[in-house]
């Protein structure tokens, strides 16, 4: 019987061998994939153990930090947002229950300290992970001004430095208190106006006449027009049997191209669009970045694509048999984000070179080691420096004597373009302003949109743009370290 005893023993040992192999599969080989699964509670639970890095603005204000506390003997970290609702959609949240958004999501691996080879060593040593801080380009002084100015409406403000692409402000209204996400998310969700949506990057609005900046650049790029080209406005322009009129039915008579932008004359731009044709105008749109996602350092599902939509689906920029005359004046299913329009203004301001927008300047450990540094990056050239300076001069005229005078700043030259997208209900216009300052040496570019207003872009959006640009231009760099 001793032989069978030995065989039985060996059979059982072999069985345990199989168990060990399978256990190794689950604990070592498949572990990574299991950890990443969305319904894995450990994934989020482990986040509570991490001393997440801080999110610090360009002017050294702490927007997010982790605070240690004890529960049942375990040390956990709670996320705290000292500025509450400030830049809420940009900063985002990171909670076990609601997941994560904004920069909290985009830079999670840095904030949570799981980057580089150190992460694996930490796991082996079972050491506590410490996240790195992220330093923003965003300036809370500009952000606060922007948020205050749009607080009582729905809308968005985007402020960028056109020379670098650094985002100085990204405001969206209505907003929410980031500290409330963990405690009372249901209330935030129930609130009207979708406060969780980042209108600056996700809001898709008809651009109205602000799109004429794109058309003007395209016109000058084509060489067929210059700022002095003469048009004759009869108050209407018929294309494919449909009549395009000017705002308020005004007749402008004989005027030049600069006047056309200054007073936002639809008939002139419709003619330009018709002559450029859909493929040429579409090609210019592509150079401005329409039709593809903006490469900004935010989660891709929080950035909408600007372009032409039909039934919710994005169309190609250069689709044939399209009504280029209406596209030229910002109609024909065009939907754009405020971020995209700020980039349009920024490209004109920066001598025709469009810079990639970014929010995080650098990632830096608590010991001061720079983990990641973001340098300015040129995306595309929309026009020659000469053409952009011509367009800039035309836009300067808009603020000096045209529809955008309310964006004017004393002692400074401002360039811009207004837009008023009408919806049929006179109380539900979308008011736009895009522009930059100082016009001769641009340091700041802006896009403002206000939803559901009875006013026009010149009345409602332009003054906000002016005030925000003034704040941005007067904001001096802050030295030293952030105050906790």
């Amino acid at each position: 019987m001793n032989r069978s005893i030995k065989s039985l023993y060996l059979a059982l040992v072999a069985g345990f061998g199989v168990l060990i192999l399978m256990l190794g599969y689950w604990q070592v080989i498949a572990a990574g994939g299991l950890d990443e699964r969305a319904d894995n509670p450990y994934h989020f639970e482990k986040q509570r153990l991490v001393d997440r890095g801080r999110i610090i603005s360009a002017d050294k204000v702490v927007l997010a930090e982790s605070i240690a506390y004890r529960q049942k003997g375990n040390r956990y970290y709670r996320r705290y947002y000292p500025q509450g609702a400030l830049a809420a959609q940009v900063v985002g949240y990171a909670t076990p229950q609601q997941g994560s958004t904004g920069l909290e999501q985009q830079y999670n691996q840095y904030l949570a300290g799981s980057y580089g080879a150190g992460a694996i060593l930490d796991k082996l040593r079972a050491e506590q992970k410490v996240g790195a801080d992220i330093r923003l380009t965003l300036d809370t002084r500009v952000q606060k001004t922007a948020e205050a100015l749009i607080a009582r409406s729905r809308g968005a403000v985007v402020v960028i430095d056109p020379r670098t692409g650094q985002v100085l402000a990204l405001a969206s209204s209505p907003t929410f208190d980031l500290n409330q996400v963990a405690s009372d998310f249901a209330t935030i969700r129930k609130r009207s106006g979708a406060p969780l949506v980042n209108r600056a990057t996700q809001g898709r609005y008809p651009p109205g006449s602000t799109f004429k900046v794109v058309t003007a650049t395209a016109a000058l790029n084509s060489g067929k027009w210059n700022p002095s080209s003469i048009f004759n406005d009869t108050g209407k322009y018929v294309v494919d049997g449909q009549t395009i009129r000017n705002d308020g039915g005004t007749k402008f008579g004989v005027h030049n191209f600069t006047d056309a932008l200054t007073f936002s004359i639809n008939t002139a731009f419709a003619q330009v669009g018709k002559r450029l044709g859909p493929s040429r105008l579409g090609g210019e749109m592509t150079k401005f970045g329409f039709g593809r996602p903006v490469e900004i350092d935010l989660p891709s599902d929080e950035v909408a694509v600007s372009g032409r939509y039909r039934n919710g689906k994005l169309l190609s920029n250069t689709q044939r048999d399209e009504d280029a005359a209406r596209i030229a004046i910002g109609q024909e299913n065009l939907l754009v984000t405020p971020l995209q329009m700020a980039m349009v203004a920024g490209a004109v301001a920066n001598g025709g070179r469009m810079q990639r927008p970014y929010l995080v300047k650098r990632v830096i450990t608590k010991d001061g080691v720079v983990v990641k540094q973001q340098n300015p990056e040129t995306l595309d050239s929309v026009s020659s420096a000469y053409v952009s300076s011509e367009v800039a001069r035309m836009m300067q005229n808009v603020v000096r004597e045209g529809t955008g005078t309310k964006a004017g700043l004393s002692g400074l030259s401002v360039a811009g373009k207004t837009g008023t997208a009408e919806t049929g209900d006179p109380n539900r216009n979308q008011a736009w302003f895009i522009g930059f300052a100082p016009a001769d040496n641009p340091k700041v570019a802006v896009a403002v949109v206000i939803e559901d207003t009875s006013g026009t872009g010149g009345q409602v959006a332009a003054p906000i743009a002016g005030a925000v640009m003034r704040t941005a231009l007067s904001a001096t760099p802050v030295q030293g370290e952030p105050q906790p």
Partner: protein
Amino acid sequence: MRLRTREMYFLVPGLLLGILGLAAAASARTDTLQVGPWQTSLGVAMVFVVMHAVLRLRAPFSDPYLVPIMAALTGIGLAELYRIDPALAGEQALWMTLGGIVFCAIIVFLPDHRVLERYRYVIGLTAVGLLVATMVFGTTVNGSRLWISVGGSQRVQLGELAKVLVVIFLAGYLREKREVLAIPTERRFGMNLPAFRHMAPILLFWGLALVVVVALNDFGTALLFFGVFLAMLYLATGRALYVGLGMGMFVAGSLFIWATVPRIAVRVGSWLNPFGDAQGNGYQMVQSLYALADGGLVGPGFGRALLVTPGGTPRIPELQTDFIFSAVADDLGFVGSVGVMLLFILFMARGFAIATAARDGFSKLLAGGLTAVVGLQAFIIIGGIVRLVPLTGVTLPFMSYGGSSVVVNFGIVAILLIISQRSRQGLIDAVHGAPAT
């Protein structure tokens, strides 16, 4: 070195493992250095010291390794229970005290296990009676009918006791029939088989195992009983063909039940694809897999994994019983969980060594069967956790929370040690002459 001295040398580190584990789990709770529940540690250590002392007096020649192995396994289990809920560890320590009393009682009052052979049919009938009683009067807990309520909230798992009685019965029965079963007399289906009247008990057992699956809704218990039966049949006859046939029949029967009983089909479905219903039937399995993945290669240490929510609820339902191994795997990682499996392999090595050293058929079968029952039970529940077999509700011997399981497993070790003592005592008597009785 004398055997009991050797036992003591191994018992000290075995006990220290549990005591330090408890201290580590307690320290993890507060993030400061703690001694842990010293009353529990001291109490359990005392139980093992008393067991050691009784062995010194009554079974000095018995195997010196089993008790230290048992101490290590129960110690790790106790530390894991403490980290799940300190109250569980306190209760488990009481069960271990009761287990120790049963252990000592067996050592003292059962000087010769061979008397059991005489009562094999009574014991066999008792086992059947216990199982039938469970089927009839059983309380359904977590979908399985394995418990009998004995007043208040106390429940007894009669199946745990029944499994030992079945092993005793089989040891006696197979010792009696091993010759006729081992020698084939008829040729059927191209195989050499023994006469049908000798085969009948096998078929009866097969049928019974399947009835248990359906009636108790517990695949694990059925697999354990049937597996132990096949293992002992193999020990008795040395014929692997029976094992193959038996396993084939069991699989065929299970497939038939799977195809016909919808409730079982659901369980099999959640075994094959737990992620398909991760919030429903697959929940337990999926949470356990997440725990395994979380443990990784080395794990964070006793009490440091996130097995329990801040509110105090274990993330895996039945963590303290069926899933205690997942807790070990999470806290101690792959390295620690392999360590536990190696302890079970060591346990089997000693148990089968006792069987090999035993000098009569009944003792060999009894020791082999008891060892196989512990090894198989560990294999089945760990196999369920790694998804080798469908998830089952059997306990992990020595580690899972539960009085019935603890007491019965302590009893099993006691019987193994008695067998070991008898065979070596016999050897000594043969050399030096039997003492006058």
